[in-house]
């Protein structure tokens, strides 16, 4: 079982968390102005990389806060976690190294 570093609580076991899919997919400011194609991209299309992936996670059975994480989908390694609205310290290329 992985340990995940919740920005609020520190290292906690994986079973307390839930993954919320790809991070940094912002809801459009004015959805009604978004065209059909772009809206369907927003709704349904997500990245599925082999390697480092930015994801949303929530510490569901802990503080209840959402945060972001860089996770390597090959090794399951959490490269780093960072608060909602924040940016990761490492770039994807660095994280892969």
């Amino acid at each position, binding site marked *: *079982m*992985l*340990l995940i570093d919740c920005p609020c609580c520190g290292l906690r*076991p*994986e079973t307390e968390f839930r993954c*919320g899919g790809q991070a940094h997919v*912002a*809801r*459009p400011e*004015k*959805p*009604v102005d*978004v065209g*059909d194609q772009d*809206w*369907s991209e927003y*709704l349904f299309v997500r990245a599925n990389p082999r390697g480092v992936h930015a994801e*949303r996670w*929530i510490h*569901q059975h802990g503080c*209840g*806060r*959402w945060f972001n994480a860089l996770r390597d989908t090959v*090794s*399951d390694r959490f490269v780093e976690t960072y608060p*909602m*609205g924040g940016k990761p310290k490492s770039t994807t290329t660095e994280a892969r190294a």
Partner: protein
Amino acid sequence: MAQHFRLPSGGRIDRSKPVSFTFNGSKIEGYQGDTLASALLANGVHFVGRSFKYHRPRGIMSHGSDEPSALLSVSRGPGRTDPNNRASVVELREGLVTKSQNHWPSLNFDVGAVNDLFSPVFVAGFYYKTFMWPRSFWDKVYEPFIRAAAGLGVAPDVPDADRYANRHAHCDVLVVGMGPTGLAAALAASETGKRVIVADEQAEPGGSLLHASEETIDGKPAAEWVKETLAVLDARENVILLPRTTVFGYYNHNHVAMTERVTDHVVDPKGAPRERLWQVRAGHVVIAAGSLERPLVFADNDRPGVLLAESVRVFVNRYGVLPGRKIVFATSGASAYQAAVDAKRAGAHVTISDLRLEADCGPELAKARAAGVEVLTAHTVIGTVGAKRVKGLIVAPVTGAGAIGPRRTLDCDCVGISGGWTPTVHLFSQSRGKLAYDEALDAFLPGTSAQAETTVGASHGDYDLARCLTAGYAAGAKAAGSAATARFEATPTLKGFQPVRVMPTDANPAKVRAFIDFQNDVTAKDIKLAVREGFQSIEHVKRYTTTGMATDQGKMSNMNALGIVAGQLDRPLPSVGTTTFRPPYTPTTFGALVGPARDALFDPIRTTPIHDWAVEHGAKFEPVSLWRRAWYFPKAGEDMHAAVARECKAVRDGVGVFDASTLGKIEVVGPDAAEFMNRMYVNPWLKLEPGKCRYGLMLKEDGYIMDDGVVARVAQDRFHVTTTTGGAARVLNHMEDYLQTEWPDLNVFLTSITEEWAVIAVQGPKARETIAPLVSDIDLSPEAFPHMAMREGRICGAPTRLFRVSFTGELGFEINVPADYGRAVWEAIYESGRKFGITPYGTETMHVLRAEKGYIIVGQETDGTVTPDDVGLAGMIAKAKADFVGKRSLARQDLVASGRKQLVGLFADDPSLVLEEGAQVVADPNQPIPMKMLGHVTSSYDSPNVGRSIALAVVADGRALMGTSLFVTTPGGFTRVSVVDPVFFDAKGERINA
């Protein structure tokens, strides 16, 4: 039998404590400290089972957890029977009932042994080749055959009577193994004061030192050193010593799982659990799991009486048991010589047959000869004599070039075989560490660690006692953050072996059955065949031949199988790869994994404060998510139909009372609460006055209905939101997600208040009169308290949030009171309503009443692909709002296209026919198959108030089909229905405003 093979003295058994058990019905005696294997051998029993595929007689091969063949059913009493126990790891305990497996009718005479004669049929991949065609055989012939043949023992068929515990633990250093290396590591790690856990799968700590004969450590006999070391460790408060504890799984971030066998060896556990599952999070893991001996591969090497050489030594030295009177050791390495010398000293007639040339042997040769052991060097093994017990070993001289000389049969009743050693790298491999092949040791050794882990000692290919101790100590210290080292003096170990895959033979290779994997009956021939058929990766060969499957997991077979594949392909061994070892290291009971999560703790059941009242009043219950809800309240002699009909009439004619406490409830609080609600629900909220309620409809971003419920604005900055019973957690998560991640600027707090409030729905024309005497501080008159209003006040003196709402279409109230007052208020209402014939009703009546009114239930009329317009709720949408979750999607092409399924009512032509929920709707029952499905029935009931059956359905363009006829599937065919308005009762909605 009277322990004829027990030595007169020696061993670590307690001869003052005889223990009796049964094997296949015969009573057998051993001693405290025996395993089943040592006790059976002490009584001369070798033949204890039949093999998996060929049903060949099999005996005890090993003293440890690598035992492939001696698998017994062991019973400790009713509900305490397990199959497939390795005799070598079951501690003897008074009264055990043990049985051999995989034979019929008896161990000695087994019909399945005929498989042995037909062995050409059972070649590698025979499952894949045999059970192909004809197709009609799959279900009726092949599957029953495979199921009957698969597996060894018989699974228990009664509930497990034992209790299992679990425990989570943290430590700085976890040491796996209490052999010399592990004990030295534990000493060093605990010296620092760090928290140390030390686990070993055996009953007694000490590992290989427990069967030491001549070995000394720092001048002391090895067993003495073990005793003193354990005393030191035991006295340290920072050390947890766990014997009988198998580390079976090594997962991410040093999460290590182990099972402790707490009471299997105790006659009266006094309520203690059988096993305890430990989940340890370790700062550093030191793996000192030792090594496993390899068998030699030659014809009929599986006969009872053939043991691993080191196991012979263990039975002699540790258990005081001589596995045979005339023992031949067949070896290609040095360690078997020590076993031979010890067996000779114990009184056996001993011969060694060594594949190695005289010049390639080390000091072991002189030592054995000095002890009076005859040694045949440069000899191969051609095969064995004997079926149910080995009677002789056929050996022959072999030259360096491979020429084989004349055969000679060595009479014997026991053979000790040794093909060298394999480091136990299972846990290292599970931790995702990379293995590296070491040609000199002919073994895969731990290479690069993937986690905070160190593998040391024999697990790392180090077979010298002094070096294991020194390296173990250093590794333990380092794991605890110290640089301490210690020097140990110890007797040099006889070590070194010549790797051999299959012993050279002059026999016809087509007729030779030389077993690689004893448990799965895989021979060298099978592996060669698999390679000839094109399987080149060891992972494929493993699956095709089943070698290294089941409990073996490559413990005995891995290196021999790899070596044969590499030899056949003429490639270096590492290029064939090694199999990935996966948890568990040894079989783990389901009980340990399940732990306390069974029976009442398997799945929690939620009940309301009024639950017990409903039980006392004879309610039948139904599960709704984790809740148990009162379904209906039958009176004496009533069936469900009669009870529901009575309840339905009572609500419309007088008054009914319903426990709605399971409704999800969320309090949305803060200066931006109304703005937040405005974005989360389709409805307008900004102008809703405090004290007013509104039916809220929630969409997912894709535009489909997610949930619904009545929402009251309690204050300017406070909403009391209700959700569906099953949707409470989902809705809160959904709200939290948007609040935290999209609109963190909104000043809003969300709190789940589902359990804080009991909710009592009082519904019917007499509802007001029923509650009026109990309510204070609230004017209940229709003018002061209209439909969809909410007031705070008191009922029976308890604070209440009183909603005037209705899910029945009648005058109704939903009374929220703090949960602790729930039952008292319910009883007061019930008492007050008696003069009006107040009737408690359950969820079934609730469903019928709302269906009579055409009210949808999310999850019944909707299925995650239904829009507000589909169910006639487009009017709820605040058109003026610029945005809310789901708004943009309502304009998606598919959601505005014609042909969408719309909510309608259906009347079957036969008013007594209740359609089946889920039944398909078609226009023409005579059209060719596949028919065009127009939709399906979502709700269907017999309605006492409408006076006939009613149904709700979603039908393509249904609203345009009002008045037309359609057809609905029935168990017998089709029935004709007419499409009607989905509101069946009080279409004008007058009653609700009474």
